[in-house]
């Protein structure tokens, strides 16, 4: 029966509108669970007692919340920049390796760990670098006392834990571009009298810039939206945006609906801008490679 009806519809595929019918379930899903909820969030954030207003935005940004945004942005910039720089260096070291199996194993490791995060990761860092963690104990035995100057439960500790997923993600993002650097370009540069530094400064880096920048955006968004790792590692102690929004949802802090929505909308804009920047730059990088 189903087969038959599809067959008869098949005959009408010349009509333009028909080609959209099989996509209807998907479009309904997107509207129902992506677009409408977000639009209603935005409209609720703009609604006050007297209709459309920006008053929620003015009132939501108390010094405490501003501090949360400052922390989140700082954390994201730090872990994204470190991720980009260190990830590129490690990726370059990986592809410099002459042994195929070393390359494959390390790429597999990066691939697998990109998927890590959240609660188990946070807990692994407590075991490793907590006040009685293994690395803490090892360092203590050779006379280096991490505590009390460093705390894994602080924003610095959080940055270190974030690096655990930012680093492999960067490696996976930048590998294709690094592999695209041709050996001939280096040979040509050297033949023309450049040294390695000049090759990087004037040949390789300018080629890599779009990929590096677009990866930075992805890593920034990745860190800005992260919640599970922060919540498990530091609980409510570290004041970042996602932790604040989550505590508003759970009702731990009483706040008018419109204010919570205003925070969420501002964060959403920040992350979506990053994703937009990524897509734009990644598109450019892809075109220039072709």
């Amino acid at each position, binding site marked *: 029966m189903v087969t038959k009806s599809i067959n008869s519809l098949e005959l009408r595929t010349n009509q333009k509108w028909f080609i959209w019918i099989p996509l209807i379930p998907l479009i309904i899903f997107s509207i129902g669970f992506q677009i409408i909820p977000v639009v209603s969030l935005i409209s609720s954030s703009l609604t006050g007692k007297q209709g459309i207003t920006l008053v929620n935005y003015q009132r939501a940004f108390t010094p405490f919340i501003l501090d949360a945004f400052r922390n989140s942005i700082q954390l994201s910039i730090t872990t994204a920049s470190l991720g980009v720089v260190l990830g590129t260096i490690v990726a370059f070291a990986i592809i410099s390796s002459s042994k195929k199996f070393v390359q494959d194993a390390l790429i597999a490791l990066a691939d697998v760990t990109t998927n890590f*995060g959240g609660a188990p990761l946070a807990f692994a860092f407590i075991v490793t670098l907590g006040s009685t963690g293994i690395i803490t104990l090892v360092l203590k035995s050779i006379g280096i006392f991490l505590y009390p100057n460093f705390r894994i439960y602080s924003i610095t500790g959080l940055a270190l834990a974030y690096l655990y997923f930012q680093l492999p993600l960067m490696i996976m993002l930048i590998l294709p571009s690094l592999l695209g650097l041709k050996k001939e370009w280096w040979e040509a540069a050297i033949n023309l009298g450049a040294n390695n530094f000049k090759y990087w400064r004037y040949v390789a880096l300018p080629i890599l810039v779009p990929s590096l920048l677009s990866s930075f955006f992805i890593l920034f968004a990745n860190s800005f939206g992260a919640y599970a790792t922060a919540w498990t590692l530091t609980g409510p102690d570290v004041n970042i945006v996602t932790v604040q929004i989550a505590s508003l949802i759970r009702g731990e802090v009483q706040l008018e609906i419109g204010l919570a929505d205003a925070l*969420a909308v501002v964060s959403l804009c920040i992350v979506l801008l990053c994703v937009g920047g990524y897509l734009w730059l990644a598109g450019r990088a892809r075109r220039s490679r072709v």
Partner: protein
Amino acid sequence: MRMNLFWRSIILILFLAFMIIPVIATLIFSISTRWDRTLLPEGLTLEWWGKVTTRGAFRLTLRNSFFISLATALALGVLVTPAAYWAHFRNPKSKVIFEIMSALSFGIPGVILALSLIRFYSGIPLPLINTPNILLFACMELSFPFMYRPVANALDSIDVRTLTEASQSLGGSWFQTLLRVILPNITPGVLSGFLLVFSTVFAEFTLTNLLVGARFKTFPIYLVEFTRFDGRQASALAVISFVVAWVVSLLIIWITGRRALPAGGRVAGR
């Protein structure tokens, strides 16, 4: 050019240490009698593993996680695969819908997705809010690109038009073509999408915590509860999570013959 051996070795060893020590430390911690005063564990034991795995809540949360991961992966497979096939075969323009959905899925952080779903659906009389149903849809939204990417890559790598036309000229319907001709040809893509979604949802904490709370406890929720009061049992649970993530990722690498998946879309339960 290449990096010289000295620097290369140092960098790779540091990288390996950073990535592996936390996992190994957690594993050893979970089988140590005590390991917070001395350089080496004071003794080895399986007590914590025994304790934590014999609890009823352990089996319940593991089952819940397994169930929601499986349900999400199946539902997404059914939603995405036929639509993606159609887009590749008949309506290439519509691929932009998939791209926008993927970008939104990555671009809407978990906490904001949870907040916006609660805001909208609590005012609507559907059996969604405060039930595992809403979690299923939220998890589908979260892991959409993990299903779409591998399936789209697989569809790109075969000649969809020729296969479909061959099948249709032999009298096959659109549905038969999808099931008997296209699906067998894109099995690795569908399978790795399925596994990616499964492992993402298995590790999901944020949406579960904020949307269903204690009503539907999953494995990561159980793990976080333990980190607050018994570190050693929590470490056994963390090891289990790591093993699930590793096994699934290795399976994917094995199925797709190494890295058919672009990174960037792959961000799990942060």
